[in-house]
């Protein structure tokens, strides 16, 4: 009977564990149930931001991601213009800008009394230097595309940009994007991709004090900042790769905000905790169902339209995003972004989808899968394994297409494997090898009307983002006219035409645009400003800008 003794310890261990675990139920987050009514402080001594990945040495050439990498670099480096909450360009290093009526010449008057972090004065030569430098070293993570800038001249404290062709969006797209580099530092750097943290010297509101790889950054307010007053004395950036851990740290107050959108179920729990607030707003990043337009049967617009009709976008948004997303505009453009055609809407109609498939020649086959041109409609849907949200959407699309007799296998692969099939070598001239893919373009795309032509133009030197292999003469013609248009109004009109054409031929299905939902410790700092489509990590949040 001595064996029996073995049984004794196990239950007691189990009980102890169960008790320990049971006590965890208390951390459900419902202990405090006050939502934040009273506004918190608009200034703070110290603030900690959690980001998911290391962003290198925080120079325009060494940041790792567009978001939040560029947003962190913006603490240190300034641009000539800065976008406001509604994405309209406002003065920053330039105190005013004048555009010639032909939108080919832009004259900027620079602000006086601006100094670099090391005390050297900032001047127009730095602007000229930056343009030349970016043209020479195109390897920047978000290298501004300056090929069209023919000439930059200095006239006193004025800088004049002359373009090869008219570009009404030059100020918002390039002047508000190009970080100005200090000539006295960067003229000696011939390998900008190796720039060190010590060389991260800008005119920005914060100075980089320390950088520890995979741990984080420390930034100190720049007391001499000429364009406004920093709201924080010190900003810490902590790198926390795991979402769960970042949310835990937000609860304990170890970090004060997190760069990512909080999943809705978490947001509800966080909102109940005293001192934490969630701010929501539109996000301009898009989520698409991309078809390989060059492959049968996706070369047939009727088939593409039928598939689009079979997708219940509202159900996807309700289920996967808990309602926190804007429905996709079939014309791709976000309804809140300048130039959108708000009249377009997604049509969900299963019966219509079936009819359309029948009309295209589909006949019933085995297993409830339709047959078209002798081939059963079985397809693979590629999705990034790093994107749980898109995997869930792909699964729902699989179930929805099953209803109209289309079989879908969801194939979740690492991002590079998906890219290698959808966008081999990041060069659309190399073709593509997929049926359908969950895809998306980032938020800044919506702020530049010429990006829509880039997404759909069949001329691969112009349609660099045409990963679907869209080929439509009418779209190509509209794209040409849009690029040639010299005024913003004209461009917006053509953008509207393109959106309507897209809704007709459906080279891809624009499913939704996830809203931004950012959690922050309101009791520590409440000065955040939500920039449409981009979130709260922006210069307006950190600085009281002088306008």
């Amino acid at each position, binding site marked *: 009977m001595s*064996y029996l003794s*073995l049984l004794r310890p196990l239950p007691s261990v189990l009980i102890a564990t169960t008790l320990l675990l049971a006590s965890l139920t208390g*951390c459900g987050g419902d202990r405090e149930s006050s939502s934040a009514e009273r506004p918190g402080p608009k200034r703070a001594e110290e603030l900690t931001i959690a980001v998911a990945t290391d962003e290198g040495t925080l120079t325009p050439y060494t940041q790792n991601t567009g978001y939040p990498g560029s947003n962190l670099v913006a603490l240190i480096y300034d641009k000539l213009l800065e976008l406001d909450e509604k994405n309209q360009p406002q003065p920053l290093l330039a105190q005013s800008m004048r555009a010639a009526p032909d939108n080919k010449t832009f004259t900027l008057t620079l602000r006086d009394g601006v100094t670099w972090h090391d005390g050297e004065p900032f001047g127009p030569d730095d602007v000229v230097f930056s343009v030349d430098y970016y043209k020479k070293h195109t390897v920047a993570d978000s290298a501004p595309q300056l090929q069209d800038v023919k000439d930059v001249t200095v006239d006193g404290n004025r800088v004049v940009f002359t373009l090869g062709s008219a570009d009404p969006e030059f100020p918002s797209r390039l002047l508000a994007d190009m970080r100005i580099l200090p000539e006295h530092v960067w003229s000696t750097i011939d390998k900008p991709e190796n720039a060190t943290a010590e060389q991260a010297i800008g005119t920005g509101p914060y100075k980089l004090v320390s950088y520890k790889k995979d741990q984080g950054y420390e930034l100190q307010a720049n007391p001499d900042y000429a364009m406004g007053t920093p709201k924080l004395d010190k900003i810490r950036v902590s790198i926390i790769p795991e979402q*769960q851990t970042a949310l835990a740290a937000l609860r304990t107050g170890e970090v004060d905000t997190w760069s990512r959108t909080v999943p809705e179920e978490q947001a509800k729990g966080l909102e109940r905790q005293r001192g934490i607030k969630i701010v929501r707003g539109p996000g301009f990043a898009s989520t698409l169902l991309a078809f390989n337009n060059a492959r049968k049967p996706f070369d047939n617009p009727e088939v593409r339209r039928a598939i689009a009709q079979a997708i219940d976008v509202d159900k996807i948004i309700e289920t996967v995003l808990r309602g926190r997303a804007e429905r996709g505009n079939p014309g791709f453009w976000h309804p809140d972004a300048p130039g959108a055609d708000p009249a377009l809407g997604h049509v969900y109609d299963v019966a219509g989808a079936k009819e359309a498939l029948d009309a295209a020649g589909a006949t019933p086959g085995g297993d409830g899968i339709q047959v078209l041109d002798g081939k059963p409609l079985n397809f693979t849907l590629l999705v990034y394994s790093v994107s749980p949200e898109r*995997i869930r959407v792909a699964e729902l699309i699989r*179930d929805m297409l099953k209803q109209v007799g289309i079989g879908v296998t969801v194939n979740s692969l690492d991002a590079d494997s998906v890219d290698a099939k959808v966008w081999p070598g990041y060069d659309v001239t190399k073709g593509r090898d997929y049926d359908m893919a969950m895809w998306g373009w980032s938020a800044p795309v919506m702020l530049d009307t010429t990006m829509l032509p880039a997404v759909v133009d069949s001329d691969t030197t112009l349609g660099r983002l045409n990963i679907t292999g869209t080929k439509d003469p009418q779209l190509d013609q509209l794209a040409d006219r849009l690029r040639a248009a010299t005024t913003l109004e004209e461009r917006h009109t053509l953008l509207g035409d393109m959106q309507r054409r897209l809704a007709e031929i459906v080279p891809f299905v624009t499913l939704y645009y996830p809203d931004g939902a950012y959690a922050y410790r309101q009791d520590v700092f409440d000065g955040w400003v939500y920039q449409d489509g981009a979130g709260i990590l922006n210069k307006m949040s950190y600085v009281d800008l002088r306008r």
Partner: protein
Amino acid sequence: MTATEVVLAAPAEAPARRRLRDLLGVAGAVGVTIVGGMVLVAAIGPPLVGNDGLSPVAEPWAEPRAGLWLGGDDVGKDLFAQLVIGTRASLAVGIAVGLITTVVAAVVGAAAAVGPRWLEATLMRLSDVMLTLPELPLLIVAAAFLGRGIDIRIAILASLAWAGAARVVRAGVLSAWSSPHLEVAKAMGAPARHLLIRHASYVVAPLLIPIFVRGAMRAVIADASLSFLGLGDPTTPSWGTILYWASASGAFLTDAWSRWPLPAGLAITVTVVALALIGVAVEDRINPAMRRVR
């Protein structure tokens, strides 16, 4: 397996239970019962739960109710169904990897210990190379070129696990090889193969049990960890998949933690503990000399 089913099917049948206990001791009986139960669940459970755990059957984050015993996950898939169906994948990975690892390690380890010099050198250096292979990129490469199926994961996990185990076996055989009575036997001219099988195996065989158990335990945990790192297949139900989605939707910090990440984590823990208990029990039985230990 038959003994297990007897225990499960007829707990009142005392003699059968006693036989099992006599065979394996209480620890082993508990382990076999649990693993047997898991195997039973894996075998007959999936058709009984009523859905395939692949598609949503309820609203997102549904609370538990009749027929939806653990509620729904972030899109309303049946968590209980996923738990039951996931048993198959986890057990298959554990047992298959454990078996492959043990067989390969035993053969390679023994051959390296008593084989000729060149064989020893080749095998041990091969195991060194295997040990130096960085696991993660290997898995990514394998996933990219071979897919993410369960067979691929078994092959990869086993091919990464045998090398360390083979070194342990070799150490055990070397130790036995230099034990006094084998030295005597060798001096008397007994053939090596005979010595290896008849005598060294007494020392080495008990070592194989923990190798199998550890191989299986590690594989179950590693498989879940791979899913957690996003290197599994998040669209097929497994315990690792449940934990991946729990983590992706932040369920650890919500009220759903006790019906979502907890059961899946416990399922892994209980299975692995049960395997370990069997290992301990078998090891105690397999070596008759061990009964003498006081």
